[in-house]
Structure formats: structure tokens, C-alpha cells
């Protein structure tokens, strides 16, 4: 799929795919050379020589993780990539167990079994619409695991090989430990809040505390200052400092996420994804473990890039998302102007008739479709149209759904072939030739105000040019509701627009019947 080409941050990165593979392939030997060079002559922090085979095993695991992500460049290679990831993890775990004298193998095996069963069963049972919650919950576990490992390393530094000759924890390791537990704790508490908001246990509305910026910056400065002090202070009596860092980091995770509204959760989930990577990397530094460092860097960059893509797709700066409060004052912006504007109401029969006559139809699904569980009915409608010789395409906005790529998964679940699904940049020019734009459960992403109205809160956000299509069908439950951004949509009142007011699933089923 060519979509990824258009997402490069600027023309400066104008490598073609082939060059990119070559450049990555070029890195790997460079990596390997460097690690061997470093590993063979050097001594571990604990004074024991590093076994080059062990170091290379971790390196192989790291490379397999790179290949796992590389596989995701296309759906065909993705499953092989996932297998690489599993093999990499197996190598990392087996190598660790092999090289440490194990006092408690049955307990460890039991722990892996318990965790494995919980994880596996959850993964099998989870509904695809609940994927964002699941990912947030998983992030919180990584964060908590990082905190536990950090505390264990602090309590038993000898086992982690981070003691110097005098039996004190090395200065550099203390910085890494401090940062590791801090990032891990922020990931944990932040993800818990993100989970509660996504899962509906907590209102999606932002919770605004007075002076929150002052409090947050103060707590952050406190964590950094304490970490620095923890590094230089003598070991005796550092316990209190260490525990304060842990406590403050849990606190700041909560404080950072509660003012962020439900609409910004895709960015938050991506950001926490990034943090979970940095936490793993910090622990990798403590242990001098290449697999953890490579993985941490991969996951860290992945989350950061996804946050960037999400922010860009909403035309928001990362800072404004993190500062929070978006969507808190959406109520009063609906003016009296919208009340008595004329709009046309269509029926399922009209829609079926028009679409049967059409040559090409572009379907724009939004989160509303997922809420109504209409994806299967929608796919059935698409199939019926295809049988009539109509060309059907699906157009997906980067922020459709509640996490990056969420809508693609939902459509894939409904058996929509992935080569009929297109990204914003790839399909936007086709609306001018389209006979019908069928909007279902989306709103802000088709609002022309983003292009024309400088005063609109969504001004500048890239949107679909649905207004260029000959006919627009807009499936919506009622005229009253507005999108996340709380702005009225010009498309409702256009001459070529027909509003199909009904539940998304029911409407699709009725159209199928009428076809």
C-alpha cells in the first residue's frame, strides 16, 4: 500500500522503499559489530566478563523485534513479523533463565503460566471495539512491571550487577533506576486513567484542577531534582528519596491525564505507548541488556510517531493536547443560527436507489458506526452494491475510531478486504468524481469548516472533501448531536445532502433490504 509514503514528515526524507530497506539492512551489521566490539573486551559492571554468546543472544532478540515491526509494513508480511517477535521474546527469556543460577524455577514457571493464561484468555475474548481499553490496560502492566523491577534492583543491587567496588550502587545506575521507576510509574498511573476514561468507568470530560500547570510542573521538577540528588547522595539513607520519587511519579501520571478529554485519548494512548518503551529502555541501561535497549528505543519511537500522526490529523500541537482541557467548553458554541436551517431527510429506499444507480460510492465510517456495531451490516451493503457493478471504496481518517488504525481493524473484522480501504491522502482527490459519499457515524472529519472557518475549533484539520461528491448521504441518529469538537456541520444543509436519521446498523440493514 502506498499510503505510508505520504506520511513522511517532510520531503527531506525522500527515500523510496527500497532505499529504506537497504538502509535498515545496513544498520544491522553495524550494530552487531559495535556490540561485539563493546562486549568482548569490556567487563560487566559487577566485574565478571560478559559472555559474548549471551550478549549476542540478546542482540538477536533485539534484531527479531526490529523485524517484527518491519513486517507490519504490509498486511502480507505482518503475520511473519509477529512470529519473529514471539521468537525474539522466547530467546530473551530462555537466555535470561539459562545464564542465571535459578533458586526458584517452579515459582517462575508458575508466574509465567498465571500471566500467560490471563493474557491469552483476555486476548481471545476482547471485542475489537474495546481494543483501545485493552491496549491502555496492557500499557499500565508494562509500567507497573518496570516499577517493580526498578524497586527490586534497588533492594537487591548485587543480583543486577550494579554495585561498585565499595558495595554502593553505581552513580550512573542510580540515575537510570530513578528515571526507570519514574517513567514506569507515570506510564502505570496514566494508563489506568486512560483505561477508565476509554472504558467509560470515568467521564471522558476533562477534569480541570485549579493551578494544575503549576502543580504538574512543580511535581515534575521535584522528580528530576530528587533523581539528581539520589544519584549523588551516599547510599545510606537514600531509601526515603527513592520512595518519594516512586510516589511522586505515580501522582504525576494521574495529574497529567485527568485534564485530557475523551477526544484526545488516541494521542494519550500513543504517548503512553511511547513511555512504556522508554521505561523498558531505562531498565535496559541498568542491566546493560541490548534486547531491552533496542526494544525500548523501537517502542519509544513508535509511540512518539503515532502521537505525532494523531496530533497532525487533528491539527493540534502536542503541547496543547498534553495541557488538556479540550472539549470542556463546547456547549455554548452552538448558536441559534443552526436551529431553523433547512435540511433534507432521505429514506433507506432513496439511498438504495441512488447508490444502485451510482458508478462509484465512497463510504466514510466513523466511531459512531463502531458504537452501533454496524460494520457487518455496512459490509453487506457494500457487497450488494458491488454485485450491482458499483465501485465501492472505504475512506478512513487517521483519527477515526479511538486509537490509531482502529477503524481499519473494525472493517477488517467485518471482512472488508483491506485493498478497498484507503487513507485520507490517497482518496481525497477522488471525491470530485464520486457519485455518492456515504457518511456513517463520522462528523468532524467531513466538516468543511475545518477548511473555511478560521474561528472554528477544528480549523486547519485535514478533512474529506465530501462536499465535492454529487450526492451525500449522512447517517446520523438525530439532528441534535454534534461531533466531539462540538461544532455544527455545513454538510447537513447542503443541496446534495440527504440526512438518513436512524441508528447506523438499522439504516444499513434497511438499505440492504431495499437493494
Amino acid at each position, binding site marked *: 500500500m502506498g499510503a505510508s509514503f505520504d506520511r513522511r*514528515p517532510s520531503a527531506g526524507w525522500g527515500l523510496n522503499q527500497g532505499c529504506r530497506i537497504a538502509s535498515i539492512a545496513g544498520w544491522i551489521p553495524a550494530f552487531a559489530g559495535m556490540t561485539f566490539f563493546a562486549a568482548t573486551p569490556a567487563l560487566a559492571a559487577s566485574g565478571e566478563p560478559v559472555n559474548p554468546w549471551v550478549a549476542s543472544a540478546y542482540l538477536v532478540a533485539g534484531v527479531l523485534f526490529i523485524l517484527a515491526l518491519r513486517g507490519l509494513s504490509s498486511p502480507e508480511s505482518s503475520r511473519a513479523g509477529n512470529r519473529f*517477535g514471539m521468537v525474539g521474546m522466547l530467546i530473551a527469556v530462555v537466555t535470561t533463565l539459562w545464564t542465571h*543460577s535459578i533458586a526458584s524455577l517452579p515459582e517462575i514457571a508458575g*508466574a509465567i503460566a498465571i500471566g500467560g493464561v490471563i*493474557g491469552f484468555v483476555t486476548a481471545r475474548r476482547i471485542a475489537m471495539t474495546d481494543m483501545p481499553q485493552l491496549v491502555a490496560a496492557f500499557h499500565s502492566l508494562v509500567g507497573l512491571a518496570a516499577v517493580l523491577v526498578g524497586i527490586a534492583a534497588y533492594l537487591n543491587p548485587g543480583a543486577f550487577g550494579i554495585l561498585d567496588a565499595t558495595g554502593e550502587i553505581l552513580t550512573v545506575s542510580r540515575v537510570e533506576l530513578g528515571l526507570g521507576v519514574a517513567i514506569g510509574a507515570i506510564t502505570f498511573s496514566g494508563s489506568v486513567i486512560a483505561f477508565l476514561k476509554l472504558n467509560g468507568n470515568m467521564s471522558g470530560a476533562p477534569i480541570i484542577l485549579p493551578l494544575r500547570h503549576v502543580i504538574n510542573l512543580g511535581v515534575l521538577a521535584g522528580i528530576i531534582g530528587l533523581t539528581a540528588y539520589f544519584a549523588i547522595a551516599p547510599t545510606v539513607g537514600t531509601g526515603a528519596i527513592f520512595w518519594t520519587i516512586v510516589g511522586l511519579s505515580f501522582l504525576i501520571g494521574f495529574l497529567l491525564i485527568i485534564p485530557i478529554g475523551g477526544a484526545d485519548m488516541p494521542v494519550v494512548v500513543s504517548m503512553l505507548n511511547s513511555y512504556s518503551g522508554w521505561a*523498558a529502555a531505562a531498565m535496559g541501561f541498568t542491566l546493560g541488556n541490548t534486547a*531491552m535497549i533496542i526494544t525500548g528505543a523501537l517502542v519509544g519511537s513508535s509511540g512518539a510517531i503515532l502521537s505525532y500522526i494523531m496530533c497532525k490529523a487533528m491539527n493540534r500541537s502536542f503541547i496543547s493536547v498534553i495541557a488538556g482541557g479540550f472539549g470542556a467548553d463546547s456547549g455554548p458554541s452552538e448558536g441559534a443560527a443552526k436551529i431553523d436551517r433547512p435540511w433534507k431527510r432521505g429514506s433507506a429506499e432513496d439511498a438504495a436507489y441512488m447508490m444502485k444507480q451510482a458508478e462509484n460510492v465512497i463510504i466514510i465510517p466513523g466511531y459512531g458506526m463502531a458504537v452501533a456495531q454496524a460494520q457487518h451490516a455496512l459490509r453487506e451493503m457494500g457487497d450488494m452494491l458491488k454485485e450491482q457493478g458499483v465501485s465501492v471504496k472505504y475512506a478512513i481518517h487517521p483519527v477515526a475510531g479511538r486509537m490509531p488504525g482502529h477503524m481499519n481493524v473494525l472493517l477488517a473484522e467485518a471482512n472488508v478486504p*483491506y485493498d478497498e480501504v484507503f487513507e485520507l491522502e490517497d482518496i481525497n482527490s477522488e471525491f470530485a468524481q464520486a457519485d455518492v459519499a456515504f457518511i456513517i457515524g463520522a462528523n468532524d472529519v467531513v466538516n468543511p469548516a475545518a477548511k473555511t472557518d478560521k474561528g472554528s475549533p477544528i480549523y486547519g484539520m485535514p478533512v474529506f472533501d465530501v462536499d465535492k461528491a454529487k450526492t451525500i448521504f449522512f447517517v446520523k441518529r438525530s439532528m441534535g448531536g454534534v461531533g466531539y469538537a462540538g461544532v455544527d456541520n455545513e454538510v447537513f444543509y447542503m443541496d446534495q445532502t440527504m440526512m438518513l436519521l436512524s441508528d447506523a446498523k438499522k439504516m444499513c440493514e434497511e438499505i440492504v433490504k431495499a437493494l
Partner: protein
Amino acid sequence: MDFISILSIFVMACFVGYYVVWSVTPALHTPLMAVTNAISSVIIVGALIAAAAGSQADGGQTAKWLGLVGVVLASVNIFGGFAVTERMLAMYKKKERK
């Protein structure tokens, strides 16, 4: 390993991550998050070391139990993350050519 060589690996890996992730097709961003989540549980290595160390030193016993809890949490993630990615990827199908 000394700090600078570890840091070099880290910096290089950030660049590799940057290029690899931009080449991921947007349609697979959700599986990307699930799989990165699974691989970041490589932190299980640290938890295993703590759990395996036994209790010779002061605090070793506590560290061991913390390590075991860490192993449980990381395993949930590893198995759950890979399984859910596999489940999602299995759903991506091409158009059947007739």
C-alpha cells in the same frame, strides 16, 4: 558494557525505530501498538533476574517476590499482546479474485 557503548546502541536503535515505524502502513497502526506493547514486555528479563536471584542479600527476599509479580504482569502482556496481534492480523484479507 560501558555506558557509552550502551548509549550508542540506544541512539542507533532510535534511528532504526524511526525509519521502521514510518514504513508501517497506517492500516496496521492498531496491531503496531499491540505488538510494541508485547515486545516492551521484554522488561520480563529484569523481573526474571530479580526472581531468580534468591535471597542471599538483604532485601533479596522482597526483591524476589517483586520480581515474581513483575513476571506475572509481563507475561500477561507478552501472551496477551502477541495473541491479540495475531488475532487482528488474521482478519486482514485481500479481495477474493473471482
